[in-house]
């Protein structure tokens, strides 16, 4: 049982990342893979600051900001230097590898007997209960904020940017600035995920972000299949679907491990699984 509970904890930790991917890929239609680097960046910022004696509460906004800067850089390279979005993301992700390594000073930084965001908020209960409650609180705050943002005039302009750029430019929106902001927001959320996961697992690692974009994409797709939204549902339902998708994704991986699949093949399982969820809607719509 605790096996699945820790899967739920991880799922919630990755939900922030999944919402980030939802913003870049679904709302803005930009295939952004800065993610791998910004996720690690969030984790590195958390590990460096917390092991350096700073409060996890201070590290949270800094992690978000660091990710946002990385995302904004990708956005600037994409819109101002007219570099293909995929390539812009790869460039920033590659650069971040060195940045992350330089920040940590080594490839792995453990957090042993340091405070975490989970035990800093004076919430009673066991460690895993604290994690669960704090994660629910953080993800709820992100969810409510995003739902509100998407309803504002600014948020409508954001959604229209990914939906019909020609139209929204004619309605007076600088779509370049919008994309830069969108990628900053998406990668800020991704870094928050890295920040959370680092504290759940108790260490930051230079390779923790490898292939993480697939986890986010998989979560978004599971949410889409579950809530069968063809983007007709409200933003609230879509985001809830993404969060549930992220948790289910972890449960499925936990199940795969529990039936004895070697951990070596975990990424292979992930890839095949995501391929399945990505292609299901296509096959369905053909029929």
């Amino acid at each position: 049982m605790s096996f699945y509970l820790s899967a739920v904890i991880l799922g919630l930790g990755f939900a922030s990342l999944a919402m980030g991917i939802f913003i870049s890929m679904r709302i803005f239609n930009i295939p952004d893979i800065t993610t791998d680097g910004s996720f690690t960046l969030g984790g590195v910022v958390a590990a460096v600051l917390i092991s350096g004696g700073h409060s996890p509460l201070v590290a949270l906004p800094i992690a978000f900001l660091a990710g946002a800067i990385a995302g904004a850089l990708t956005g600037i390279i994409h819109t101002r230097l007219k570099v293909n979005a995929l390539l812009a993301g790869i460039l920033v992700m590659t650069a971040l590898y060195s940045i992350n390594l330089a920040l940590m000073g080594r490839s792995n930084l453990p957090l042993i007997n340091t405070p975490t965001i989970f035990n800093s908020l004076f919430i009673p209960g066991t460690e895993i209960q604290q994690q669960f409650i704090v994660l629910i609180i953080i993800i709820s705050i992100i969810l409510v904020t995003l739902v509100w943002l998407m309803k504002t005039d600014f948020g409508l302009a954001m959604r229209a940017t990914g939906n019909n750029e020609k139209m929204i430019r004619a309605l007076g929106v600088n779509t370049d600035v919008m994309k830069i902001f969108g990628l900053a927001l998406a990668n800020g959320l991704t870094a928050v995920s890295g920040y959370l996961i680092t504290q759940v697992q108790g260490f930051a690692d230079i390779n923790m972000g490898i292939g993480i974009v697939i986890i986010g994409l998989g979560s978004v797709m599971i949410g889409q299949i579950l809530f069968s939204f063809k983007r007709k549902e409200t933003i609230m339902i879509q985001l809830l679907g993404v969060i549930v998708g992220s948790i289910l994704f972890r449960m499925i991986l936990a199940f795969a491990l529990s039936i004895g699949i070697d951990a070596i093949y975990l990424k292979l399982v992930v890839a095949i699984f995501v391929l399945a969820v990505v292609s299901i809607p296509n096959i369905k719509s053909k029929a």
Partner: protein
Amino acid sequence: MIELKGISKTFNKNSANENQLLNDFNLTIRKNEFTLIVGSNGSGKSTLFNLLAGTIIPDSGQILIDEKDISSVKDFRRSKWIARIFQDPLSGTAPELSILENFRLASIRTQSKSLRIGTDRKFKDQIREKIAGLGLGLENKLDQSMGSLSGGQRQALTILMATSDDTRLLLLDEPVAALDPKTATTIMKLANEIIRKSNLTAIMVTHSMRDVMEYGDRLIMLKNGEIDRDLSGSDKKKVQLNDLYDWFGE
């Protein structure tokens, strides 16, 4: 009043494909005037339109709106004065946003998009009333996504959206060319009504000779980047279908 003074635009300058489309082009559009522009392909219609919209910037010359020089103002900033209707009926609306949300964005075309929720009850009632005026039965579908409507419905709403905020100039680029004949007639009639009712200054590019006969105060025919014919008032009313075909043949 819209003025183009000494506008020149050359594409692919200093290359083998150099193509001068406009050379010292002058045109004045009076307030509340509905101008139709015709001309064969390559006559400079689209260039003229894109210059007004700001998607291309002239090499030389001035574009003035009510005596304000906007020649080097970027397209998304020109939305302060100019509304545009595209030929593709799907281009003017965002399919995944609701009808109401599309109208909200159009209603703040000239303003900044701030962090406030503008789609409140009052706004909704206002838009419902406005859309009811179209007589298309869409007033009770405000929360439906734009993408669920037909091209004709979307183009009708796009035209209505263009009048949602202070519009000094409405640009229509063959607004009904992509619609079936029956819908095209209905939507064009609607567009004309909206333009007249709101006293808009409008410029429409069209290939439909029937629309030329039926609508507008002024007719401009472009040929090789120059004004070949410019007819207003009774001169425009006298134009016959045969004349138009003759002019194109010249």
